[in-house]
């Protein structure tokens, strides 16, 4: 542990523990969680914080992930700040209640540790679990480092409670969840200043009895949906504000996307999650050898940062999207989203590369291969290219 000039302390912790520390320091009031590899360390440390009395929260040890989310919907409706963490099959089991939480406008924050879905069983990383929840109405952040994980938990509460939309922050299984890195933990007073207590304007109140989420006939239902979409639109501004204010208090800023390198590259490589760190190294190496390659990291996936993506892609020769996921019957999911954002605005090739499913390592050589293919390939037929698949 080392004390920094700004009053923070730097400790070396895993991504999972970075979540636990941030949730504690956000003064979360109700946690409900069920264990699943590779998320378990998040809830183990939170359990310890609660039992040791250094975190003043109710921890409901539930019998399933479905119940985790249902419990938090109840707790959030009662006016409490809430948290859960899960992964893969657990997130899939929650699916029904993810829709419910967003529809009920409960500002729940959840960490999802990206893990591949069965069958066959896998405990290793890919993004199909969280991306399968794309249309549930949740905001989604994809994190690159443990510091970003810690900071994003705090930003997530700021955003969720402002727009009344739940937020999922996502990190790669093991590559981040179980890898220790130095993380600066700010002083509690600074966090309290950035994140004041949750004071919802509407909550369950026996002095003002009302029914919530009852049957909405066709006369009403569509307006509820429109309001949720409006909240996602508003979140685009609120996410940036929360990030800017975070920078002014803590000195770190992430953006909804981050452009690394030239504004008019021959190839723009698009990544999300921990692969971004590997890609930075490869791009530095290739640019030093005379290439002109840039990197676009997508941090916020919902609401999709279409205008930032268009801006970053506007002067690129080609776009190569690295998707650690597969939308069966279509291709890489980030590639599809980017094509949709660019259509009618930016006329550029978007190539989709599928790699690293089920935790297969994406090494510098994997990225070199993608860049090499992108350089020579000149097609825009919409098909995805699978990288590193054995014959």
């Amino acid at each position, binding site marked *: 542990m080392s004390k920094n000039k700004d009053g923070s302390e730097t400790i070396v912790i895993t991504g999972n523990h970075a979540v636990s520390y941030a949730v504690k320091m956000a003064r979360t009031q109700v946690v409900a969680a069920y264990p699943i590899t590779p998320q378990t360390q998040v809830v183990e440390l939170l359990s310890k914080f609660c039992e040791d009395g250094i975190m003043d929260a109710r921890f409901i040890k539930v*019998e399933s992930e479905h119940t985790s989310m249902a419990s938090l919907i109840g707790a959030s409706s009662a006016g409490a700040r809430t948290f859960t963490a899960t992964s893969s099959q657990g997130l899939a089991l929650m699916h029904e209640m993810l829709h419910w939480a967003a529809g009920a406008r409960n500002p729940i924050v959840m960490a999802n540790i990206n893990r591949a879905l069965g069958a066959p069983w896998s405990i290793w990383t890919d993004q199909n679990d969280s991306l399968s929840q794309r249309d549930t109405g949740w905001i989604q952040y994809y994190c690159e480092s443990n510091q970003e994980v810690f900071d994003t938990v705090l930003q997530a509460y700021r955003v969720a409670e402002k727009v009344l939309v739940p937020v999922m922050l996502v990190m790669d299984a093991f590559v981040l969840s179980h890898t220790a890195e130095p993380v600066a933990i700010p002083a509690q007073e600074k966090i309290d200043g950035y994140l004041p207590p949750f004071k919802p304007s509407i909550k369950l109140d026996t002095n003002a009895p009302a029914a*919530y989420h009852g049957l909405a006939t066709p006369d009403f239902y569509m307006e509820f949906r429109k309001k949720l979409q409006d909240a996602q639109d508003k979140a685009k501004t609120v996410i940036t504000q929360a990030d800017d204010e975070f920078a002014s208090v803590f000195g770190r800023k992430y953006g909804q996307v981050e452009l690394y390198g030239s504004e008019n590259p021959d190839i723009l490589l698009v990544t999300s999650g921990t692969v971004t760190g590997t890609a930075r190294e490869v791009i530095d190496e290739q640019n030093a050898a005379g290439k002109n390659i840039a990197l676009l990291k997508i941090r916020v996936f919902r609401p999709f940062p279409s205008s930032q993506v268009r801006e970053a892609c506007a002067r690129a020769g080609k776009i190569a999207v690295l998707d650690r996921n597969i939308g069966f019957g279509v291709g890489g999911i980030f590639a599809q989203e980017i094509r949709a954002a660019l259509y009618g605005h930016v006329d550029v090739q978007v190539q989709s590369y599928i790699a690293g499913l089920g935790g297969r390592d994406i090494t510098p050589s994997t990225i070199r291969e993608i860049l090499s293919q992108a350089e020579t390939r000149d097609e825009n037929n919409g098909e995805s290219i699978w990288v590193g698949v054995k014959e």
Partner: protein
Amino acid sequence: MNSVLTDLDGAELVHPGHLGCQGCGASLVMKSVLKGLGKDSIIVLPACCWTVLAGPFPNSAVDVPILHTAFETAASTASGVKAGLEALGDTKTTVVPWAGDGGTFDIGFQALSGVAERNDDLLYICYDNEAYMNTGIQQSSATPHGAWTTTTPKSKKGNKKDILRVLAAHQIPYVATASVSYPDDLVAKVKKAKAIKGFRFIHVLAPCPPGWKFSSEMTIKLGRMAVQSRVFPLVEVENGRTYKLSPMPDKTPVAKYLRAQGRFKSLDRQAMKEIQAEIDYRWETLLQDCERSPAPAPSDT
């Protein structure tokens, strides 16, 4: 044992104009229970007949907060409501997961077992109309042997799940059965349960005219016949150990109860005899459980 609902004390917290069918037993459960609970209560309501009875957005037929939630989550959502209230310093409000038999015996059973095992501070009300009535009378695991439903077009084979014993086996502080036809007993149990801390479960039989196929003015009578015939005995179980019968009317034959309902019309004399034997067995077992129950602990008396 024969009081009527309107004789009971307590504020009327169910407004006229709810959307129940004529003769709806489930509507009477809500009226009675809220007379026992009062205004400082929150109802957590999964999909069930009461989702409709309570009225569509923006209406509410009930004068306490209702949190509508998904089918299988009465217990789990309520558990979170309680934790949230406690986190904000409210330890007094009674949180009431309020589910039908489908939401309790079937789809909500896992979450129910979870809150029972944790002994969360909730008062769970299951109003049991013995099938999925809201979706149009499909069998549930609360449907009795021999009953017609739209998914058992001849008759259901197999006995109703004994939810009282299943819950008692969780060793929670309080489990009871009650009936809309004995509102004094029902409200007394609600008041008793309200004063207990921990997980409390009251299983209330709610006759359903369209689902059971009887005339809507017969609801209370059918509820009484269920108790008289020992098909639905009124009982309390404390801490999973102490079984206690509530005052019971004189015993009548099960056939009389079965013949009063169209849903049992396929049953012949032999089938009714078999049902009588099963009911007798359950009743005798219950009497034995009451007999050998330890006396309540001194603090309970």
